[in-house]
């Protein structure tokens, strides 16, 4: 499997979902995961702020879309409502925006339409877990 893990970060930079899908990735402690989320959120905001064209055109830069290392690649998809869907994959994965967009669909179905989901809290839904796992496995 080439998608190693998934993070979802809310508008305020809080980590609301975090799952590993392969054994072959360094395990982050929950504290490290929170720091990663907060840091990524900050750099992302900074990146869209320093983007040279965006301000002049009145539009907004998309911020960071990918980060590469020798061993893996981080993909990020930010929605217009400020939620970030992040996946860690093998470096060979060039394009992941389709999968991330489908994650967004699952989130809007199985997290947001679940009466027991609180917008400020982490996503706790077995259905969401299952559907997301199926999506990751089929990608």
């Amino acid at each position, binding site marked *: 499997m080439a998608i190693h893990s998934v993070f979802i970060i809310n508008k305020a930079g809080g980590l609301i979902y975090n799952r590993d899908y392969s054994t072959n990735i360094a395990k982050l402690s929950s504290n490290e995961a929170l720091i990663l989320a907060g840091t990524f959120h900050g750099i992302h905001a900074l990146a869209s702020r320093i983007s040279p064209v965006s301000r002049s055109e009145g539009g907004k830069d998309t911020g960071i879309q990918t980060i590469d290392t020798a061993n893996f690649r981080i993909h990020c998809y930010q929605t217009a409502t400020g939620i970030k869907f992040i996946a860690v994959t093998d470096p060979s994965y060039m394009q992941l925006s389709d999968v991330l967009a489908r994650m967004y669909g699952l989130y809007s179905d199985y997290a947001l*339409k679940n*009466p027991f989901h609180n917008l400020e809290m982490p996503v706790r839904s*077995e*259905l969401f877990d299952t559907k997301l796992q199926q999506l990751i496995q089929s990608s």
Partner: protein
Amino acid sequence: MATAQRQSLLKLDNKATKRANMLLEQNVAKQRRDKVSLNAFALLFSEIIQYSQNRVLGIQDLESKLSEIGYRVGLRVFELAMWREKTVHRETRVLNTLVFINTVVWRTLFDKQADSLERSTESEDEYMITDNEPSILKFISVPKEMSSFSPGAFISGVVEAIVECCQCPARVTSHVVPADGMPLRTVILLKFDKEVMGREKQLEAGK
């Protein structure tokens, strides 16, 4: 009463009559408006659950609230569904009523028949209607600490209203009984009142 005030009340009255006439004249034999999105229903239903949850203390109370909301839906859906049948008729027998719910009502509300209708093996006054995947509950994930909660209580309210309309009152409850790949498989359990079962026996004997 001042003339102006009387006139404004009269005006209100005329407007109300116009609206009432429009409603009494509209054609309900066919469904005028076919569908809305399931997402719209799911979001509304999610709010209904959250709203109710904030006003009750326990899971049982929450279920009765949902059932109460469903009850008012059932009253209307039933009389309307019957009106649209080829021959408008009444159901007063337990089994016929259950079959009507299982087929006509389910098809009307959920676009499919219920998955099964069974009599309990333990007591003859108990019946079960099962829906393996209730579409309107599709996005709901009940948290572990509330595992006895059944969001299908809304549906059991619909069913309770209908059996009452058919003069077969019963205690109707809803239970989540998950099966493989069907986490929200819902069983609607009906326990009919004693008088109903007594009348059934009499009618059976008198045949």
